[in-house]
């Protein structure tokens, strides 16, 4: 059964579940799978590889359900023409994260496309509302990949209060199951955006070994920092840092970032080699704190179904002391 919220109405979708625009790995295959399952897939255009964007948006023309296309705002500012390629694919929404959305607003709006803005502070939420955002995503520090410092429990209700019903608020960061969706609806959000959970799906274009690392990881094995960005010579503006699984590379360089920069060419070469060799003790797996909730690599559609089924059970009050006790006894 669909979970109807202001978000599902606004986007014209069945389930209030968005897949995150994970750079380069949230390709057309994942987007279509999530959207066709009733959720809302968002293409991860990342740092703007034009060929990739053209190729993946072309594939999305065949998608039968509404979908979105996501950009890193400060990166898009360097290649604004990519927005035209994206809009030509007729997405239901463009999602902008990490930077000032204003310069792109009128083009997005003129085309009749909705604008989704991801924010990490109240200040950014105000900026996005002023720019005309149709949907806000409040992202907590638990999220994998890039983000900032405030936690989901802290930032979601703060942005919900700020939006005051004018636009739907989606929660992101540390969520991976139906409990997370139900909890965020309790906080006043009208949907969730999930990255790491869809990373470990069949349709995600990530390395299988990286997906297995996510399945094996438990809570308390991710770190937020700048080591991978520095290593890849991608210098993000403050306050954004990156959360990843804690691997040998993170352990080696955290707290020694200046030294890393001093040895950048050697470290980058080593990193590139490790990546090519699929050695994830060094290559990064950009995952969030929900890793401990993820134990398998199913189809994206199954993820959408599981989450909505579980959330519905909780929201309707059908999960209670008795069912919890049964679940515990079954372990």
């Amino acid at each position, binding site marked *: 059964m669909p979970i109807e919220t202001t978000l599902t109405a606004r986007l014209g979708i069945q389930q209030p579940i968005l897949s995150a625009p994970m750079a380069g790995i949230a390709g057309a295959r994942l987007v279509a799978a999530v959207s066709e399952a009733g959720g809302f897939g968002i293409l991860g255009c990342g740092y703007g590889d034009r060929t990739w964007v053209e190729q993946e948006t072309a594939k999305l023309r065949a998608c039968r359900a509404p979908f979105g296309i996501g950009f890193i705002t400060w990166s898009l500012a360097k290649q604004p023409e990519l927005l035209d390629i994206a809009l030509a694919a007729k997405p239901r929404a463009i999602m902008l994260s990490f930077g000032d959305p204003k310069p792109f607003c009128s083009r997005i709006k003129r085309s009749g496309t909705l604008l989704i803005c991801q924010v990490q502070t*109240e200040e950014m939420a105000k900026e996005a509302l002023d720019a005309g955002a149709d949907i806000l995503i409040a992202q907590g*520090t638990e999220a994998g990949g890039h983000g900032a410092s405030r936690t989901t*429990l802290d930032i979601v*209700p703060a942005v919900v209060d700020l939006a005051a019903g004018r636009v739907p608020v989606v929660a992101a960061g540390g969520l991976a199951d139906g409990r997370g969706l139900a909890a965020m609806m309790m*906080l006043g959000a009208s949907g969730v955006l999930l990255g790491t959970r869809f990373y470990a799906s069949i349709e995600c274009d990530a390395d299988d070994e990286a997906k297995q690392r996510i399945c094996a990881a438990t809570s*308390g*094995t991710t770190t937020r920092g700048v080591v991978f960005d520095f290593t890849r010579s991608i210098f993000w503006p403050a306050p954004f840092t990156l959360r990843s699984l804690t691997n040998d590379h993170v352990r080696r360089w955290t707290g020694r970032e200046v030294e890393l920069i001093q040895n950048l060419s050697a470290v980058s070469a080593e990193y590139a080699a490790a990546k090519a060799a699929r050695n994830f003790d060094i290559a990064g797996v950009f995952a969030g704190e929900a890793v401990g*909730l993820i134990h398998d690599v199913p189809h994206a559609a199954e993820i959408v179904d599981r989450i909505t089924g579980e959330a519905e059970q909780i929201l309707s009050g059908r999960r209670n002391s008795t069912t*919890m006790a049964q679940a515990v006894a079954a372990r």
Partner: protein
Amino acid sequence: MWPDRRIIDLFKIEFPILLAPMAGAIDAELAIAVAQGGGLPSVPCALLAPEKAREQVNIVRQRVSAPINLNFFCHKAVEADPAREAIWRQRLAPYYRELGLDPAAPINSANRAPFNAAFCEVVEELKPEVVSFHFGLPDQNLLKRVKATGAIVMSSATIVREAIWLEEHGADVIIAQGAEAGGHRAMFLTDNIAEQPGTFALVPQVVDAVKVPVIAAGGIADGRGIAAAFALGAAGVQVGSAYLRCPESKVSALIRAALALASDDSTVITNVMTGRPARAVVNRAMREMGPVCPDAPAFPHSAAALAPLKLAAEKLGKVDFTSLWAGQAVRLGREMPAAEVTRALAGGALARMGKLAN
């Protein structure tokens, strides 16, 4: 209706809301008020001598017939290391001089004693319904004696591994303490602050890893946060910051003023104040030496040399060296009687859950 009644039934309380045992900030007065509101009253003993702890429990028992949670620290006590003390005192010397204090004057040692035989006798004598520990569990002999009194034993986990350890070592209830929580991080199997998960990422993972009921703690200070914690599988919540500015708290006027000014991004995790990671509103000491400072002596010895500075600065109306323990929800703290806060929290949560069920 509460979807999960395991904590309500186990503790025999009206609402599944626990008062966080905030040592130094609360005493019997606030505990009594929370009990009157239907929550579980807690008496923090970390800063008390055994006879004082006894006195506090007796005050609560005289006024309310509620179950009581007696809370203790159970860190491994380490002797002060003279070399590190010297470095620390040197680091603090400019502040001493600024406040007209002699940097070389003798100082009292820090006063946070771990749970020991003397405290255990207090537990055996008073038989509190719940005994909770911070930083793991005491050694098996002491724990056995505590359990023999019939007390429900509770302790906090900051990562899944700690939760599993606590269950294996005899905890009856586990508090999942997320990174948002104020005061000392309960961490005892890890010292990596950077890896501490947020409450809402941690709670469902702990729920999946253990069979005992899980209480969510950290950043929860209103009805919607409680409703959300239950959706994640928690059977109760522990609330601290929401009570800090209640009239019954013993937080000083100076600290109250500082807390009232705090916003959502005013707190950080620091080791400067006591030597152990703890979340507090940023003060001058944390800003200028931390928030994490390698020179801070091991817990609880950092606090010793800070104590004279705290006193002198407070006389001037400044909280430069005062521990302003608070969680990320500090701005949700309310200046209203704690019994009313408790009922408002419970009512808000129930309303939220009821609304979404329809």
